[in-house]
């Protein structure tokens, strides 16, 4: 059924350019905003899905590429899309996915206990290498502010992916939602060739 659907979708996309010229005008618009930034990560301790304490600065200032997003356990709309992006990146990279560290940080720390984080990752069939962090609201606020991504209330959040460039410690800031192809391309732009696992 999935293959049949993919085939149908592919044909629809092919036909649409010829037969439906007025329809998908939005598809040509660039869907996300990309900038390169420098951030100072605060030295705070968060808690991962296994209940273990994690020093966030040490986790993020890594030799390997790191991708960060801000989501929460009961979120609708954009968090599932961001998380589907993470899990699809892991799938596309296959064994090479161990070279990239995916870090989701909750913006609903009151509700998101390690158990909820663990259940969330399980629901998305996350592979090792994707951590979901909670902690005190003050510490999480400090991390959000450091990334210029402070979200005072979870209901007014927005989709951001932050990709750390290992060679110089800068961050690629992506505002908006990416397709899995775009996400892979953005990752491969920052990952050293030896570990980028290019198999689009």
């Amino acid at each position, binding site marked *: 059924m999935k293959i049949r659907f993919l085939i149908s*979708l*592919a044909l629809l996309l092919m036909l649409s350019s010829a037969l439906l010229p007025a329809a998908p005008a939005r598809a040509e618009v660039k869907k996300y905003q990309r900038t390169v930034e420098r951030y100072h990560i605060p030295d705070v301790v968060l808690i991962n899905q296994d209940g273990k304490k994690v020093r966030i600065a040490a986790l993020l200032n890594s030799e390997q590429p790191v991708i960060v997003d801000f989501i929460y356990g009961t979120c*609708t*709309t954009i968090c599932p899309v961001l998380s589907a992006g993470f899990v699809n990146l892991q799938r596309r990279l296959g064994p090479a996915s161990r070279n990239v560290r995916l870090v989701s940080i909750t913006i609903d720390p*009151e509700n998101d*206990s390690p158990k909820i984080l663990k259940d969330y990752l399980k629901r998305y069939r996350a592979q090792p290498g994707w951590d979901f962090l909670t902690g005190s609201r003050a510490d999480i606020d400090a991390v959000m502010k450091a990334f210029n991504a402070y979200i005072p*209330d979870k209901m007014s959040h927005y989709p951001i992916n932050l990709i750390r460039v290992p060679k110089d410690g800068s961050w690629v800031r992506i505002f908006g*939602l990416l397709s899995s192809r775009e996400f892979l391309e953005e990752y491969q732009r920052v990952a050293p060739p030896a570990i980028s696992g290019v198999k689009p």
Partner: protein
Amino acid sequence: MTRYRDAKAKAALLPLVVAAVLVLLWGSEGRAAPVGPSDPPQAELIRLGERMYREGILPSGDPMPAFIRGDVEVDSSAFSCSSCHLRAGLGSFEGGVVTPPTTGKRLYQPYRRPPSLDDIPDRAGRYIYAKTVVERPAYSRETLASAMRFGVDPANQLFNDVMPRYPLTDRDMTILIDYLEALSSQPSPGAASLEFSFATIVTDDVSPEDREALLGPLQSLIAQKNQQLALYNDFIKFGYTPTIEMKHAFRKASLDLWELKGPPQGWPAQLAAYYDRKPVFAVLGGISNGDWRPIHDFCEARRLPCLFPITDFPVVSETGWYTLYFNKGYFQEGEAVARYLNRLETLPAETSMLQIVQDAPEGEALAAGFQRAWSDLERPAVTTVTLKGSSLLDQESLGKLLAQYKPGVLLFWADARMLPNLPALIAQLPAPGMVFLSSGYLGKQSAAVPEPVRDRVYLSYPYRLTPFVGSRDGGFDAKVPILAGARDFGDRRIASRTTTMLRQATLRGLNLLYDNLYRDHLLDVMSMQMDLTVRDYERFSFGPGQRYASKGCYIIQLGPGADPPLLPRSEWVVH
């Protein structure tokens, strides 16, 4: 790895697309097959459709396959329709994404909205990634099927990227569309275009003072609503022409009092009699000193919202839908102690722990909360001894227990009668010799913890400790910060919590209903509220499926004196 191979297989098939697809498009696109005579009865089909909508599970029991952003494959159990369009199908607004209604009633009508300034990128240069179309024609069953499969509306406008595409078979599509047509098609009982009927529930174990503390704010709200309606009607009499929104802002409201008498086993029949006599749209608040479960279960069965009752014994469940609670009551205090101990770095891992539980609902709920959280933290079970109230006063037998188990940490879930014996018990504990008590269970006597042992005694305290700027009754009309103190021990905060429930959470939800008079929609919009700062708790937070608004509970110690300062030893929320 298997999935990766699957992906390669799919890619290899793409060159075959052109030949195969013509057949596929001809065969299934844009259609929803009628349900055959051999199918299950209509009620069962609706149930199957509801499961697809709410849980993302196909009638076959498999997850609904779904794709987003063109090529991102997702498991729809994490992407069910209701996760964005919500239970009542009236849509949502969250994370800057407008999710439009998806009920048949709305879909089969044309949609048009005024152009918005948000239709262009905002001034911060952010791309507007989510908005609804300005207009679309009405859907038919066929165009609706195309919409779900391919993400195009009847005017061939592409959907936002967050909307998954669902490759459903014709039969499954039919079941889902039938469900959408039935979804929120009739207003809920207890609401009419001009009137809301509410009830509140009081059980006969509640004192007259507590009963008045509950009813005062409720009756005042109803009176105010009706007074506003009278003013509004006067405006209309003098020629004011209301906007569409304004027409839905004022409704007459009534409040029935459902008094439950006798043992809880008799409550369901009494509730049913009240309800059958006059169905209500929602239960506002309520109060009981006992287990709320019979009322909770009744509200689940009748799909009746019950908003923030005053109870220390809520039903702790991950699936309960219709009752919103302030918190988990005693259970939450027990949980907080478990999480605090788990994070206590000064506590040696081999410390022996003993839980002594008074044979009463309070003790049982505290112990259950502790045990659940301790087990979730993957800690070994703690020895638990349940004793009658009289045994808890027998110092000799308690001494034997302590000698037997030698607990470095004693969890003592008992009432205040045992406080005078506490120093003698603590003297028998090996290091670190910590004792945990519940301020809720000790009540007004919490401040009577003997002063010489206060450095060894920790209390769970589920209320706000930082100053609240506002009035004592929960409103915002005073400017002097309120700081809770030992004098507040034992105060059930019935009036202030009920006022908070009404003015900060419920009214907002009712105002957002407009003409969508569906109970599920009320719960949906209340779930999508922003967090609130309230008088009695540090923070109220919501979210789809979240049913306990206050998540925190401090662990405190008492300072010196008869009116001791409350010294926080933990954060509001500990993980």
